[in-house]
């Protein structure tokens, strides 16, 4: 334990004294979140979005409202999912034309109010049936709310993969690992110290960045902070383990950088950091499941936006746990000091 604490302490000192890296770890997520908040801020969009549950084409013959210009009518198969989007202001209204005509709006949303007026004005015209009103409540989920969990997770990924994988390869190349090999320090003690050090730093940095972003942008948070912290911690363990596995044998920093980029870029694109994977080709969705970042982003977003509980994000947490165990076992087994 004494040896583990010594290496842990030394690694933490390295991080905090490397000012450039430390500042970059804070600046990167802040700047990305702020840029997205700025780019996607502004007034209401110039188009209304209405989900239509049922045969919209047939309904258009009877419902004048469905012929309204500048309104995008989107077919909806999952009514419950569509209602969640109304709560989050991602849809302005949902119409159900399957039986007795019904509609849902978010009472807090100005677009919902305007659409409701339009629907009400069209009632009775050309035989348009009257719709039953259903009001929902819920805060608007802005794009920045959607993208923030992804950016936090992405920042964690960079910190874990480069902060562990790249550093260990550099240690191996410049002889630090060889020097440590000549001491009683075991590979397990060394790797465990690096995992705990990076985990502590990543969770600390993420917490500070979250609090800062929340203070500036009032991020949506509908779930448990504790569950969110546990999810990010498990995600960090998984990504650190992947970094250790990458660094288990490599001796070239350039090659390690290439390998890490090969891991990072597909995750950046296909893990749902920037956009939802809903609607993408099924193969893309299946392919994305191999990435730990996909599960981390999905779970964090569900907790923050949908208020998901532990039972809801259990599949993602299980996937992260299994991946962590596999990566860590392989990393310890393959690790070489030189």
């Amino acid at each position, binding site marked *: 334990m004494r040896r583990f604490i010594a290496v842990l302490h030394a690694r933490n000192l390295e991080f905090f004294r490397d000012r450039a890296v430390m500042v970059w770890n804070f600046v990167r997520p802040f700047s990305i979140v702020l840029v997205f908040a700025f780019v996607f801020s502004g007034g209401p969009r110039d188009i209304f979005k209405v989900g239509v549950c049922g045969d919209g084409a047939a309904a258009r013959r009877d419902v004048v409202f469905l012929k309204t210009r500048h309104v995008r009518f989107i077919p909806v198969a999952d009514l419950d999912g569509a209602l969640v989007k109304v709560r989050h202001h991602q849809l302005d209204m949902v119409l159900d034309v399957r039986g007795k005509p019904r509609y849902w709006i978010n009472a807090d949303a100005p677009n919902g109010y305007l659409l409701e007026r339009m629907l009400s004005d069209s009632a009775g015209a050309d035989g348009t049936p009257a719709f039953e009103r259903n009001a929902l409540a819920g805060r608007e989920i802005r794009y920045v709310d959607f993208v923030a969990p992804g950016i936090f997770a992405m920042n964690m990924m960079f910190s874990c993969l480069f902060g562990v994988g790249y550093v260990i390869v550099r240690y191996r190349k410049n*002889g630090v690992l060889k020097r440590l090999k000549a001491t009683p320090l075991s590979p397990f003690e060394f790797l465990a110290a690096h995992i705990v050090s990076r985990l502590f730093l990543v969770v600390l940095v993420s917490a500070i960045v979250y609090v800062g972003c929340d203070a500036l942008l009032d991020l949506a948070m509908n779930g448990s902070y504790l569950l969110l912290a546990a999810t990010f911690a498990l995600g960090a363990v998984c990504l650190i383990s992947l970094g250790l596995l990458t660094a288990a044998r490599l001796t070239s920093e350039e090659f390690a950088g290439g390998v890490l980029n090969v891991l990072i870029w597909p995750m950046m694109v296909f893990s749902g950091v920037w956009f939802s994977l809903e609607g993408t080709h099924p193969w893309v969705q299946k392919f994305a499941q191999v990435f730990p970042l996909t599960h981390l982003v999905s779970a964090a977003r569900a907790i923050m936006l949908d208020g998901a509980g532990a039972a809801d994000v259990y599949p993602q947490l299980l996937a992260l746990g299994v991946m962590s165990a596999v990566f860590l076992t392989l990393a310890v087994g393959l690790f070489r000091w030189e």
Partner: protein
Amino acid sequence: MAPLIEVRDLVKHYPGVRAVNGVSFAIESGVCFGLLGPNGAGKTTTIEMMEGLLAPTGGTVRYKQQPLGERFRHEAGIQFQHTALPEHLTVKDTLRLFHALYPHAADLEHVIGFCNLRDLLGRDASKLSGGQRQRLLLGVALVNDPSVLFLDEPTTGLDPQARRNFWNLVRSIKERGKTILLTTHYMEEAGALCDDIAIMDHGRIIARGTPDALLQQHFSHVFLKLPRDDFSIPLAQFPLSLFESDGYVEIRALDVNQAIALLLQHGVPLARLEIRPPSLEDLFLELTGKALRA
């Protein structure tokens, strides 16, 4: 008494290269053993196999009559030829880190004082001068109060003053009864510090013994050195064995008085005459036919 370390038939092959080719020797406790040779002779490969860092292709290394193991790692202190330390740590942080890795460690204050590191404790370890860095690396090698200390070319690249200061530290360690294994390509260093030496070339030991015994065994003459400009006669006409190098003429003489008489007889002025006994450098040249640092 059983040797502290015993190396038997040690072999290390790399593809196309026999770096170490059947090396055997034993090191007694309390001895400063020098492993000498030019760059590429196989010294570092040999010492790294002895340190347990490199797996031999063949042969054995035994410490206190046992194969290298946990006990050796606790009792050995190692200073590598090329090593880096974790970044952004001060001298004190570095010493504390390595000190904490050993269950039975030396008094850190004593190590700091012994290696003259007190004034450097707050300095970034990566920003030390060559001599300061070597003192820190020696301190790191001493934090576990080792029974045996491996020093792999510890003074390479140091200026003469820093080198002499380092020698004084090694002498102090010797006085405390520690066993030292030193590799170097500085023969002067080996002569100053080592009780016992082995000279390596092409992965083999080509001579073994105390410095004095080896010199007596291979040399019975002394060297007389004069500037070439002082010879007004063709060198071929001089009756003693000599050779010319870098503007100087070096004469091998069994009888100094006779050599001086011959020089005077041939009109060579003696004002710039240097007479020196044979050195380990000469021994190496004698044994291998090449200069040590070629």
